[in-house]
């Protein structure tokens, strides 16, 4: 049984179809990278999986249980945690308070405050600082830590690299690799191909709300991905 199974998901914003009958599966312990350019529907797909924007049709199964119609706050308690695009920290709360919010659903597991501080040591030094004064990279670390503290069955990461310097992104993805290596099942949405391929077991590429490429990450030709990313079909010969 797969940890996460989304079948024929269609998500609309008014008249606009942002996700068009997308199917994906995520096995236990696996890391899937969902790639695509701006507006391909990646973030909307995550929103549908996390419950912040409900799909108009299709199903989402977590460990075989249907969760597709549950609102976000109930899905977290079932075990789907989202690290949202743009971090979305609680600006007036301190770093530690932000992390403690992650513990609100009170799910048991390997992740507690100590484990998060081990993963992101720089956060331990600034645990009393307000969320709004942190740099982008620090905020991203807090956002990831906050999601981890929910001890999720599936961790969803939305555009971790957005607006951050390459060195910071690389450090964050080092952390993501360690997180997935410890057994966490993860779905990573990214525009940054290189970083995504470093952590992913499998890759799925979206274009115009539809899946245009599905492949294991190992041995994947970067050009093939780039073609799918931009919607280029190469003629034979």
């Amino acid at each position, binding site marked *: 049984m797969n940890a996460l199974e989304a079948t024929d998901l269609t998500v609309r914003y008014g008249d606009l179809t942002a996700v068009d009958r997308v199917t994906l599966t995520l096995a236990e312990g696996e890391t899937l990278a969902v790639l695509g350019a701006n507006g391909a529907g990646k973030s909307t797909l995550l929103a549908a999986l996390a419950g912040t924007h409900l799909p108009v049709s299709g199903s989402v199964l977590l460990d075989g249980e249907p969760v597709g119609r549950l609102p976000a706050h109930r899905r977290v*308690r079932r075990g789907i945690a989202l690290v949202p695009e743009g971090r979305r920290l609680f600006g007036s709360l301190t770093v530690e308070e932000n992390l403690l919010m992650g513990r609100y*659903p009170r799910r048991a597991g390997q992740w507690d405050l100590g484990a998060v501080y081990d993963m992101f040591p720089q956060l331990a030094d600034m645990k009393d600082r307000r969320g709004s004064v942190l740099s982008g990279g620090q905020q991203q670390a807090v956002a990831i830590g906050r999601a981890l503290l929910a001890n999720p069955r599936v961790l969803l990461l939305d555009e971790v690299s957005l607006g951050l310097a390459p060195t910071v992104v690389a450090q964050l993805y080092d952390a993501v690799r360690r997180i997935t290596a410890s057994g966490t099942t993860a779905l990573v949405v990214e525009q940054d191909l290189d970083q995504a391929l470093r952590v992913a077991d499998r890759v799925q590429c979206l274009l115009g709300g539809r899946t245009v490429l599905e492949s294991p990450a190992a041995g994947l030709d970067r050009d093939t991905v780039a073609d799918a990313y931009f919607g280029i079909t190469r003629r034979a010969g």
Partner: protein
Amino acid sequence: MDWLNAGVQGVLLGGQYALLACGLSLIFGVMRIVNLAHGVLAVLAAYLSLVLVQQGLPLWLATVVVVPVFAALGYALQRGLFNPALARARGRASGELAPLLVSFGVAVALTNLLQEVFSADTRTLPTGGLASAGLAVGGLSVGVLPLITLVVAAAVIAGVQLYLARTSTGRAMRAVADDAGAAAMTGVDPRHMYGVATALGFATLALAGVFVGMSTQFSPGSGDLVLLFAFEAVIIGGLGSLWGTLLGGIVLGVAQTVGAQIDPQSGVLAGHLVFLAVLLIRPGGLMPRSVQA
């Protein structure tokens, strides 16, 4: 000496205004709702206590009953009326007015309902002499009830601050105030949390209403002035700061009593004018909180 006396009375009066304003400030802080029925609800609490007292309950017991009843009322009103109104607000541009308009409708309906049930006669809660008791301090006579009110106000504000800062529910409330959507991602149900915040605000409101009932002659129409005073205390003190609300209440109280010293008819007007002056000179209030990103 009279001036000093007026000043002291003003400070004590400020305690009552701060207690009234506490709920207004909390509810606005968490969900940006201004409840125009805030004043008449305080008066309702006074009437409810009066009814219980008339049934034979001692006043302290009536208070103990009324406060949780109001907390439940607040939760119900938030989930039944204000949450749907907030949901409307996310649609049309003029829907932003929805919670405000709903609260105004409630205020009008409730004020006139109280008028029908209790008539426009003024009442007061029997305090067994507490309302007129005084302590001699220096050459001044300090009212016992106003002193208690001030102490209770400070205690309630301190309590609410502690609750917000230290408990997980309080933390969740602050999180929801910052970003309700992100809070939902951490497992907090924003609609429930709004209800809890309103319940807490209404609990303080009920307590404040009882104190108003004890120290003044109230009638259904008193709600209007109660609302204005609570609001002035919040603005003078500075939005976003509960301790600021205490300070704002005190400033308002002093303005009113000193104004009344100058001209017995003009106490309330003096308070309004000080409020307008603060608005003109220092619109952020006396203890402004910097806007959080």
